[in-house]
């Protein structure tokens, strides 16, 4: 073992908070040494799963003949609902509507009916195709577009937000617009598909290595499915190859199947979905139908808004209730509505059950808000940016009254005015607006468009109990630190940020803090790593654990060296005790010899928040994260093809824990949001079969789709209004809706063909086809007017 040589004269530790650090696993990512679940060496005799999926969209199972499947080469067993020892259900919402294996009926095309257990994955997949299944087909609902959000079947209870009297305000308004918007869903397209490896243990024990964002939830549901207590099930994940919400609940079914097979056969069992199976059988971002009616004055000031957010829940509830809620929580985006009424409708359809996806309904709500802004702008003949500014919530520190959200929370930390003003300046918005108008006048086929849109994103789970976190910190006798917490790593640099917090607390160099795999055996009852909360919650929990140990070290030193505790200061890699300095390692060693406990479990719960869903009132969010993006596009009006010429972003992450990581989140979030609203189209055929279930047909952005000029900056002046971890702000989800600026810029380009007199009502995803069809419609309408 090499002896650690700490720098005992450093002015600062390396790798503390507010410094730019490289991802802790970067050197392993680039060398192929980072281990994902499918890369782990399999225990001898590991068996593999192939899933048997439904071939119809809705129907009863008349007969399921698995004889040929069982007889196929390498097949060890075939599992159906009858093999589930506990309850055949992985519903995360307690609705009991998410069977592990379909029982009696199938409710979407691609629903798992059985699982082949075979010696190789290839054998399992081949055998799965040999099933003879007879269905009695039933009428299927494939789209929400023609459903009635008030009357048709919903998977869970809707939410209503109400403040003031929207109906009266709209009725009395000088001007009004009422219309409907179609907003598509999105596949997560994490590069690593769903995967679980279950290793059976003694008695009722099982360890499941699972690519999951919610190890505690996976543990809970595996125990539920096995019919054993949670203490029998350990779920572990070192890292995921991307998550984006797609492994918040959707990892549980694979984990459950692996665990059932592992316990039944007393062998390790791996489930790894093929990309087509993954995209067919696991949930996605919800597509929405947004009905809106807005009343406003001649200046463009909104007086009242009425929204209906109908969302495609799919066949089961999953997280659709809270996703619809978050759409409503963000139907204001950064705008004050004097009177507002907004409803959600999580509608049942015969499609895969939709789920969490970065933003969790929030981006859909904000798309609705920006559509309303656009409608007002076209109606009064102004630049949408003017309408945006006119309707912003009052700025932080101003005595205004326009600061109450539709859920009756007061916006206290609003910095959107400054962000938008700075971005408007740095992106040369006004100059480019004029240049684009001139360009469009002189260009017959190519038209340009420009838009600057804001983001205000609420941070906290609306499910109050999820706003807690745990951590476990050990300081070993040599002064090295083992760090563990409930959050999971999916590429966002969470472990690095939390390690920076721990290093800062002990004042030791970052490389002294060991990052370890998330496991339910070390930290129990954790929230999924979701809602952008990872660093906020787990950073605070780890800080709490580190502080407990630091306090013990301080008390120990005070007693041993007989100095007051306030004269003990943690300096970089050393501790000043009165007039002398001793290395952190030496102090730890002495503490150990004196039998001081050097391990602590930390905990954190977010203060201040509360939410009464039945009343639609509360302090739902601890704080808001802000940002804005200005995008310019050029559009070919003969084909609808487009390119993003330029995007400028200014985003707020408070006092960033790690700017390099945060910039990566902003850039990645923007491009992902742009993909959602442009080329990523989920397309079901007339029989309810998803036909875009692989990258050959489902088109996420490429390097050549990112903006030609891409300027991303973080606000260097902002800090969290609340005492968050080192006054930083969450960064996972808030940048995604910055991509709305691209949709709006496309809309602006489309509008130019009718001299900006007609609202283009460009639906999303704005594929080249949708763009061209909108152009055609505008041209036709403009011709009629003439």
């Amino acid at each position, binding site marked *: 073992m090499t002896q650690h040589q700490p720098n005992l004269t450093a002015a600062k530790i390396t790798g503390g908070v507010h410094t730019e650090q*490289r991802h802790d696993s*970067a*050197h392993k*990512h*680039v*060398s*192929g*040494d*980072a*281990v*994902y679940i*499918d*890369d782990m060496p399999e225990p001898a005799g590991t068996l593999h799963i192939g899933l048997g999926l439904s071939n119809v969209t809705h129907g009863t199972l008349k007969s399921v003949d698995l004889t040929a499947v069982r007889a196929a080469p390498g097949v060890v067993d075939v599992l159906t609902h009858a093999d589930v020892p506990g309850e055949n259900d992985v519903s995360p919402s307690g609705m009991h509507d998410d069977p592990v294996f379909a029982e009696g009926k199938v409710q979407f095309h691609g629903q798992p009916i059985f699982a082949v257990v075979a010696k190789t994955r290839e054998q399992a997949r*081949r055998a799965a195709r040999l099933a003879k299944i007879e269905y009695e087909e039933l009428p299927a609902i494939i789209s929400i577009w023609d459903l009635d959000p008030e009357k048709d079947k919903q998977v869970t209870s809707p939410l209503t937000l109400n403040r003031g009297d929207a109906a009266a305000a709209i009725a009395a308004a000088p001007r009004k617009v009422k219309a409907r918007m179609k907003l598509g869903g999105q596949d*997560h*397209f*994490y*590069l*690593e598909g769903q995967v679980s490896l279950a290793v059976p243990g003694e008695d009722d024990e099982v360890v499941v290595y699972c690519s999951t964002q919610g190890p505690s939830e996976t543990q809970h549901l595996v125990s539920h499915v096995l019919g054993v207590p949670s203490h029998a099930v350990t779920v572990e994940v070192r890292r995921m*190859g*991307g998550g984006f919400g797609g492994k918040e609940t959707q990892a549980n079914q694979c984990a459950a199947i692996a665990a059932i097979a592992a316990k039944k056969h007393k062998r390790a069992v791996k489930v790894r979905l*093929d*990309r*087509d199976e993954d995209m067919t059988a696991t949930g996605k971002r919800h597509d929405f139908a947004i009905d809106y009616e807005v009343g406003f004055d001649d200046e463009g000031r909104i007086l009242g808004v009425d929204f209906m957010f109908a969302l495609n829940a799919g066949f089961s509830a999953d997280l659709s209730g809270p996703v619809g809620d978050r759409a409503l929580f963000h139907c204001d985006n950064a705008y004050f509505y004097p009177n507002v009424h907004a409803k959600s409708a999580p509608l049942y359809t015969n499609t895969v059950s939709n789920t969490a996806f970065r933003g969790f309904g929030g981006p859909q709500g904000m798309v609705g808000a920006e559509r309303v802004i656009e409608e007002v702008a076209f109606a009064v003949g102004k630049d949408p940016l003017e309408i945006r500014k006119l309707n912003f919530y009052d700025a932080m520190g101003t005595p205004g009254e326009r600061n109450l959200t539709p859920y009756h929370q007061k916006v206290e930390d609003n910095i959107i005015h400054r962000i938008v003003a700075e971005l408007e300046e740095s992106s040369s918005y006004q100059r480019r607006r004029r240049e684009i108008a001139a360009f469009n006048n002189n*260009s017959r*086929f*190519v038209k340009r468009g420009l838009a600057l849109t804001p983001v205000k994103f609420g941070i906290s789970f609306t499910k109050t109990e999820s706003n807690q976190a745990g951590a476990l910190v050990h300081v070993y006798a040599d002064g090295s630190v083992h760090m563990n917490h409930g959050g999971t790593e999916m*590429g*966002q*640099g969470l472990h690095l940020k939390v390690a920076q917090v721990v290093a800062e607390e002990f004042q030791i160099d970052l490389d002294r803090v060991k990052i370890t795999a998330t496991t339910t055996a070390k930290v129990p009852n954790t929230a999924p790593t979701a809602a952008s909360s990872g660093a906020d919650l787990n950073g605070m929990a780890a800080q709490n654990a580190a502080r407990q140990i630091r306090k013990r070290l301080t008390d120990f030193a005070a007693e041993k060296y007989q100095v007051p505790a306030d004269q003990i200061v943690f300096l970089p890699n050393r501790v000043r005790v009165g007039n002398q300095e001793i290395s952190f390692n030496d102090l730890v060693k002495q503490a150990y010899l004196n039998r001081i406990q050097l391990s602590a479990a930390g905990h954190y719960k977010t203060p201040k928040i509360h939410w009464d869903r039945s009343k639609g009132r509360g302090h739902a969010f601890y704080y808001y994260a802000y940002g804005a993006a200005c995008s310019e596009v*050029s*559009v*070919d009006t*003969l*084909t*609808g*093809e*487009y390119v993003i010429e330029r995007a400028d972003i200014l985003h707020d992450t408070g006092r960033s824990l790690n700017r390099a990581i945060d*910039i*990566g989140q902003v*850039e990645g*979030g923007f*491009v*992902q949001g742009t993909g959602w609203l442009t080329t990523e189209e989920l397309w079901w*055929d007339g029989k309810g079969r998803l*036909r875009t279930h*692989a*990258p*050959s047909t489902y088109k*996420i*952005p*490429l*390097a*050549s*789709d990112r903006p*030609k000029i891409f300027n991303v900056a973080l606000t260097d002046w902002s800090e969290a209004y609340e005492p968050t971890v080192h006054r930083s702000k969450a960064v996972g989800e808030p940048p995604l809706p910055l991509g709305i600026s691209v949709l709006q810029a496309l809309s602006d380009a489309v509008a130019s063909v009718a001299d900006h007199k007609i609202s283009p009502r460009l639906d999303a995803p704005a594929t*080249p*086809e949708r763009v*061209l069809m909108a152009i*055609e419609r505008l041209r036709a309408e403009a011709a009629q007017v003439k």
Partner: protein
Amino acid sequence: MATVKTRNQIRFILNGEDVQLSDVAPAETLLDYLRLSRSLRGTKEGCAEGDCGACTVLVGRLAGGKLVYESVNACIRFVGSLDGCHVVTIEHLAGGGDKLHPVQQAMVDFHGSQCGFCTPGFVMSLYGLWMVSPEPSDAAIEKALQGNLCRCTGYEAIMRAARAISDYGKVAKDPLLAERKAITARLEALRDGTRVEVGEGRDRFVIPADVDDLAAVLEAEPTATVVAGSTDVGLWVTKHMRDIAPAVFIANIDGLHSLSEDKGVISIGAGVTYTEAFETLSKRIPALGPLIDRIGGEQVRNMGTIGGNVANGSPIGDTPPPLIALGATLTLRKGKARRAIPLQDFFVAYGKQDRAPGEFVEAVHVPVPAKGDHFAVYKVTKRRDEDITAALGAFWLQLAKDGTVADVRIAYGGMAATPKRASAVEKALLGQPWSEATVEAAMARYAEDFTPLTDMRATAEYRALVAKNLLLRFYMETTGTKAPLTVSRYEAA
């Protein structure tokens, strides 16, 4: 063919090691071989269809005696096709020890990885680029990365890393290039001019010794699956679990890689990849350059062949419409007999080509447009790069001295069950003055030529509309207008 010597094992180099395999199934993919048989798990499976690039490795091969390394998709590359090649995986890059390769160090320092799952593939693609282009332009980087999907970074950090690689080391010092001579010699030693036959009965694959041997093999076994680049056949295996045995791997038959021009006609051997054809075609028929750049990703272009694109008869293959518009012909060969047919006659109906059992496409012959001819091809897709055609139009036009249309060929992909000429439109143009009025009149005739379908790529309405708009774009292009006719990421230099 008793005269041909056979060998019943394949031989290749994997990283530093010589490998000989006699127990390999026709459909075994390189990715499964690496991950399952060799526990080389740095190479990932993201899609198993050659679209995401997580499985990217480099394959070195002797092309005209010169060793070239190209990025390929291990997920759809068959092990059997690697005879005589050098396979380089991510594990070979750092070369042992703690020191990272310049490509890797740049990716680390510029925060080019987040979740890291796609990263080995990006590193390999960038490595392949850097070896031939140490100071690449952004356009070159983006082209090299068209076949690599990243869902986390938004690519900007990867671009920063890619621009900086040469700051971390010199290409000349790269181990692979330093060993070039030794590897070339080792690969030369593996080429013994024999036919390779691995496996028994139907469940076997053959690598013919040369083109004549290929003809003999197919004549003897007409139901065999001919595999060139495996960019399509690979998916038959990974996605449809089709049995491709017996398989005949033709990628490394030198005689099929010929590319020559004679009397204004470019002859392209059936084994010529898009990458190999790019330089010649983009120089001689400039409109084909940007089209080839939009076929698949770099890995697919390194494997896929124009011959395969033609032979498989897909209605959405990207090369048949422009080749038809150019008046290309095919050489079909069966045994010793050859016949030539116009390419447009090859496509009989959906899934049916004019190809007899045991017959194969040996070469495609493409007339270079004469001076003064107009030629253009436009591909319309949902996503600009690495996407499959929604509609593709190719236009070849000869004007008479008086400005009327002397001759015209227009062909489309994505508009019918086969690549198809727009005969009624052509008729409306022939002999007419080449004017916007003529074009408008011709645009009304599209419905006579095409009844496109609605699918996940586009609706029938969109296809119909775009198809005729492309004719207008072509017209405007021939007028020499300087105004932008379409959007472009890459400004014309």
